[in-house]
């Protein structure tokens, strides 16, 4: 056992379970129950890190999440975690940890040269230089970026899993110290659902670190009993290793749980986010000890007094052999006494207060500890490890004495941990007596108890906790049937007086923010330069902006600002606490919404067939659709060309199942449809269908689709694939909030129907043998609708066409989609039936000049622009009508849909290419339009394009120009956008 600083007894570590770990490549021993920090300290190691800016040597400073210094890298390879707090890493056998931000080594770090230049690197120095010549910043930045960052990102994807869960509770208690435990217990006894979360491995809070008693017995026994009772309650849950990191609206609190570390193999999940919805929240997060500002206050070996105490009591570790305690309050004496009790020599208590008196100082003196009252630490000695401190009376720095020591335990009082209270909207108030902020205004659904509320005696923590727990339960609707807790704590009384948190200066470096290397001088400079607002001072100096978010340094900075500005702390104000309370990994936040589950992948009923055929898919919203069915060795483009030819010359088959479908029924159905489409629908006869254009109230084309009238009061509406949900919501909106005169029922049936579209001159021959419906042109004309059977399946057939050829859209209940598809393929085999995908579909419709919402439209296009003016109803009112007559909606500036043909038939214009009237090298060059769709047309055997062009319909026959991104400008002629069968003979035949 090399753990020279492990105390002979005490602590909650398991002395029978030694664990071995590596730090910077050296093997050390620790014990089960250790944190990485306690294990390092047990081995006498303080120096674990280099600071961010000046690369100063830094030691372990705190005990838990508040740690500003001891950021290390854990794991190797893909399992690397940068910036892990050594104080919060549970030791596991085989743990690998490394120091960060140093080169070549932690002890000899070249970067420390910057410390020598620090006068140059005062706050905001970069705003004042590196400015010239213009463009040179690129170079300076390159240099600066060499020094950026602290840890390294892993270079491999994360092998671990992360979970999310919702949790509902009547009372959420944050923090399982004496206040939280008693709150949870009394809420639980009242019958409320209780959830108790705490970031530590075991409950107890400060009771783990201290040596108090409850009801005359060690407080830790009470913790065990209370926990056991809580665990017996049916509706109480307790999460250890769980940090509440954000309080959001309406009782929503986000917590993250970390898995129990495993020594072999992988954890099942690494972290789990709990989305807690609580009716009531009890915040019992305790308080964080505050340091003191003094010269050389960052020397390794300097730590919070409560941390030194906790290492001794909880982990059985002496953080040094000979300690000096630097204090401005009575509680520090408790730490000193516990250290002495553990066998650490306490060389002196240096107390800033002129006259520490009362029980605790008396006790210390009794134990023979030297108390230097009215004194301050005014310097520290040693380089990578503290060797001695210099102490002097506060009013006479010349009477310095050097006290040898290897541990400096600092206590500047306590700051209630109000982070989550602030998240929930609470505004803290300044309590001058405590030199700290305490809860001020009420926060939604939250009560604050224990030392988080500024109640620093154990008795009050217990009493307030149980009262708050019962009250929270009552507010959530539960009344206590059992008696509340009666607890009695005995602890030596502390004097509430707190001394200053700033020691006199002798010109040394005095850190306010240890992580970001922000000094008192930096803050004073900020004020001098006019950055007087607390927020400006923060941003100018980066005070409180490091990984610890100022958990220990914020309030110190406020006292500096208060002094520099000559204002009281409340006037100085505070910066804002923001989530997360403690950093949370991307992995945890993402949970299982990664990889295959990142978003749903929606598949049609025929999808498995496409997949078997080796279809290429493309995403359309969340759907995947077959884009083409290339044969072995065939490119997507060749496949699409072949598919187009088949659909023109014989017959093709297309899976149109993704189309949005809404069943619309009721006495008001016809009126409704007439109001939502801009073209006339009232005259539509049952058995017929019509293409409709839907506008937003702004008059812009919103969606389009075919709607069939199944009966007098019954319609089947189709929408675009992407528009299905928004059209449904839009119509329901009007129906429910404005058109209360209409009785109409909408049912979304998108998923009920599978749709196969047969298209091409042979479509009739393929469908005929399969159906009882009379397909003769006269009996079943274009834009008619029939119900019947296809391949024995109940079907709805629409004779519509998006290709411009004879075409039937066959709808069957989704379970039969695949069977229908296979039957059609079988029936079509003699005719060379060819499945075609969305690429061929787009080419087919472009040849015919049909628009696609989102290609030919972009939210700024009206039906008139598209040349659909004749369709727009003149008499009826419809959504968007008024907008079409606004002054900006007409005139020669509007763009019209036209076709474009290049001289060179082999040329395919790039999608999105911009159109100009005359080519020129001048920039900016006015543009008159752009290409909306462009393909090599297998049917026309040439490139074709659709375009929106200013006043395009008046420009027929004109030549326009399209400058290319690379290569010469291309000329094109404006033509009609209907390239194929403008007389509609093929479609209607």
């Amino acid at each position: 056992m090399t753990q020279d600083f492990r105390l002979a007894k005490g602590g909650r570590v398991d002395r029978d379970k030694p664990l071995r770990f590596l730090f910077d490549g050296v093997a050390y021993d620790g014990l089960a129950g250790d944190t990485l920090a306690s294990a390092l300290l047990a081995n006498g190691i303080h120096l674990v890190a280099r600071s961010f800016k000046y690369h100063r040597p830094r030691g372990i400073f705190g005990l838990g999440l508040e740690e500003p210094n001891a950021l290390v890298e854990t794991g190797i390879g893909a399992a690397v975690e940068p910036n892990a707090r050594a104080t919060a890493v549970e030791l596991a056998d085989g743990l690998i940890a490394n120091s960060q931000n140093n080169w070549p080594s932690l002890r000899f770090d070249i970067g420390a040269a910057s410390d020598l230049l620090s006068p140059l690197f005062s706050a905001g120095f970069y705003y004042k230089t590196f400015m010239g010549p213009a463009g040179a910043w690129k170079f300076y930045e390159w240099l600066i970026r060499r020094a950026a960052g602290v840890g390294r990102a892993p270079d491999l994807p994360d092998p671990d899993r992360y979970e999310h869960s919702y949790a509902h509770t009547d009372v959420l208690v944050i923090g399982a110290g004496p206040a939280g435990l008693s709150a949870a217990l009394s809420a639980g006894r009242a019958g409320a659902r209780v959830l108790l979360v705490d970031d530590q491995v075991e409950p107890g809070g400060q009771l783990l670190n201290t040596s108090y008693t409850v009801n005359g017995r060690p407080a830790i026994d009470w913790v065990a009993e209370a926990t056991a009772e809580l665990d017996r309650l049916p509706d109480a849950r307790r999460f250890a290793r769980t940090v509440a990191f954000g309080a959001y609206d309406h009782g929503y609190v986000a917590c993250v749980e970390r898995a129990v570390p495993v020594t072999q193999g992988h954890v099942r999940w690494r972290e789990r986010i709990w989305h807690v919805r609580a009716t009531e929240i009890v915040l019992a997060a305790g308080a964080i000890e505050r340091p003191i500002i003094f010269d050389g206050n960052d020397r390794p070996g300097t730590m919070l007094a409560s941390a030194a105490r906790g290492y001794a009591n909880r982990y059985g570790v002496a953080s040094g052999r000979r300690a000096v305690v630097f204090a401005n309050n009575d509680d520090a004496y408790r730490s000193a006494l516990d250290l002495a009790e553990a066998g650490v020599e306490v060389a002196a208590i240096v107390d800033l207060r002129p006259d520490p008196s009362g029980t605790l100082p008396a006790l210390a003196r009794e134990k023979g500890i030297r108390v230097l009252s009215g004194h301050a630490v005014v310097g520290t000695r040693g380089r990578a490890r503290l060797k001695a401190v210099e102490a002097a009376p506060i009013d006479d720095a010349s009477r310095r004495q050097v006290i040898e020591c290897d541990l400096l335990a600092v206590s500047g009082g306590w700051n209630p941990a109000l982070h989550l209270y602030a998240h929930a909207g609470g505004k803290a108030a300044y309590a001058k007596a405590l030199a700290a902020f305490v809860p001020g205004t009420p926060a939604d659904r939250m009560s604050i108890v224990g030392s988080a509320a500024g109640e620093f005696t154990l008795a009050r923590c217990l009493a307030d906790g149980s009262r708050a727990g019962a009250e929270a339960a009552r507010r959530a609707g539960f009344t206590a049937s059992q008696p509340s807790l009666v607890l009695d704590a005995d602890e030596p009384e502390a004097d509430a007086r707190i001394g200053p948190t700033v020691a006199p200066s002798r010109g040394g470096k005095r850190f306010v923010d240890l992580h970001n290397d922000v000094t008192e001088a930096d803050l004073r400079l900020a004020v001098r330069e006019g950055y007087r607002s607390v927020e400006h001072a923060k941003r100018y100096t980066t005070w409180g902006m490091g990984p610890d978010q100022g958990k220990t340094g914020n309030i110190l900075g406020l006292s500096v600002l208060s002094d520099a500005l000559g204002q009281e702390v409340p006037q100085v104000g505070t910066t804002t606490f923001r989530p997360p309370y403690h950093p949370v990994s991307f992995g945890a936040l993402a949970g299982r919404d990664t990889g295959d589950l990142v978003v749903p992948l929606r598949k049609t009923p025929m999808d498995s067939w496409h997949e078997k055929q080796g279809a290429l898919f493309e995403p359309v919203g969340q759907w995947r659709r077959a884009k083409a069915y290339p044969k072995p060795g065939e490119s997507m483009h060749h496949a699409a060309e072949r598919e187009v030819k088949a659909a023109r010359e014989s017959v093709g088959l297309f899976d149109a199942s993704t189309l949005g479908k809404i069943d619309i029924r009721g006495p008001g159905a016809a009126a409704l449809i007439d109001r939502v489409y801009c073209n006339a629908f009232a005259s539509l006869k049952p058995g017929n269908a019509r293409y409709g254009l839907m506008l937003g109230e702004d008059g812009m084309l919103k969606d389009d689709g075919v709607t069939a009238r199944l009966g007098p009061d019954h319609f089947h509406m189709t929408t675009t694939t992407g528009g299905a949900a928004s059209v449904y919501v839009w119509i329901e909106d009007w129906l429910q909030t404005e058109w209360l005169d209409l009785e109409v029922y909408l049912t979304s049936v998108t998923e009920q129907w599978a749709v196969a579209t047969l298209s091409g001159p042979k479509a009739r021959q393929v469908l005929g043998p399969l159906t009882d419906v009379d397909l003769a042109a006269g009996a079943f004309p274009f834009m008619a609708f029939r119900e019947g059977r296809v391949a024995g399946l109940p079907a709805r057939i629409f004779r519509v066409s998006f290709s411009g050829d004879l075409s039937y859209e066959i709808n069957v209940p989704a379970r039969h989609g695949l069977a229908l598809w296979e039957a059609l393929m079988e029936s079509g085999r003699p005719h060379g039936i060819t499945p075609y995908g969305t690429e061929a579909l787009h080419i087919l419709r472009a040849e015919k000049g049909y628009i696609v919402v989102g290609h030919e439209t972009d939210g700024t296009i009206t039906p008139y622009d598209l040349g659909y003016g004749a369709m727009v109803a003149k008499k009826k009112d419809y959504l968007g009508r008024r907008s079409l007559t606004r002054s900006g909606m007409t005139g020669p500036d509007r763009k019209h849909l036209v076709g474009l043909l290049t001289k060179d038939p082999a040329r395919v214009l790039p999608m999105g290419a911009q159109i100009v009237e005359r080519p020129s090298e001048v920039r900016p060059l006015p543009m008159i339009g752009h290409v909306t769709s462009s393909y090599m047309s297998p049917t026309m055997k040439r490139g074709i394009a659709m375009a929106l062009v200013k006043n395009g319909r008046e420009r027929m026959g004109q030549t326009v120009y399209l400058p290319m991104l690379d290569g010469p400008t291309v000329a094109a002629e404006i033509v009609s956008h209907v390239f194929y069968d403008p007389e509609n003979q093929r479609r209607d035949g």
Partner: protein
Amino acid sequence: MKRYSFVQLLRNAIGFGEGWQEAWRSPEPKPSYDVVIVGGGGHGLATAYYLAKLHGIRNVAVLEKGWLGGGNTGRNTTVVRSNYLWDESAAIYEHSLKLWESLSQDLNYNVMFSQRNLVMLAHTEHELNEASRRVHANRLNGIDAEIWSREKTLAFIPILNGSMDIRYPVMGASAQPRAGIARHDAVAWGFARGADALGVDIIQNCEVIGVRRDGTRIVGLDTTRGAIDAKKVAFVAAGHSSVLAALAGFRLPIESHPLQAMVSEPIKPVLDTVVMSGTVHAYVSQSDKGELVMGAGIDAFNSYAQRGSLPILEEIASAMIELFPIVSRLKILRSWGGIVDICPDASPIIGKTPVDGLFINCGWGTGGFKATPGSGWVLADTIANDRPHKLAEPFALERFSSGRLIDEHGAAAVAH
């Protein structure tokens, strides 16, 4: 104003920084000004600076209800680019980008404008087509836009997930090499220092709570620090524009929504450019200190609470891991929100209002940081000459009546 320079820095390093002066004064408000700018964000301060510098109008005050730059200027993810779709937008953003290129020298304040390229990923063919449309338009507008192949994109951003076997593989990108990021706070401070040196009064902790009119004309303002007369007034208050408009008796086509941003803990450089993805919905850059700075979409509902909701953060995290699998074990350090002024067409409103003498500049929504110098420039010109600057003309409030909107939703696919 003492100029900043390396020599100054050296001198002060020796002199313990005692020689540094206040960057701007903190004067008491005067009873009257020629022009009062309401809103001490980047846009308001830039307006004051250019009024004084280019138009010689120096009897100007900037009133800020809190601290300078405490609005969206201090909360944004600092993306600066000009590759917008429509001519009107391209013109004003490119004008602004040109100003950015010499802003540090002009202000004698290093705003750390870092032209590190901006890559907008395309994950579907549809996105490639949209990018093609925008890049073609940008080029003709004289903007340095490029279309990149998948290979080029992956080579430029090594940590990008290059697999084709994922939901949203990278198919290509559009890029703007001159785009980048800047140090947001420095922009507010630099303009403030510049304006102050030209005589502008910058008055913090001064909230406008009333508008004083004589008939249809504005004559002054009521503030928490007393009444202030003004010949002309400009509201440059971003998320709070509707509140001010209500004081003046008119409405705006604006809704205020929370937009969130977040930073990771500082890590060694892994990303040298700005990356945006509309489909996967996130955008990110790495600051010079080492944090990844990220954002995505707005919360759906109206809000003036400068915080956002957890689901948005979770979406950003999930998107980030999709794009950059190595970030999974990095940690989010801080998240915050700003109140963005969302306009129906995702374009700003600049110019006159129904009240004579009252000008407005708002509606920049999720993307106005990049416009800061340009917007201040055109508004200053508009105020000084009492008619819209040519670049501002298309952005008049009147467009909502005529219907001549400038719909940039496509180009603005993801908030930035």
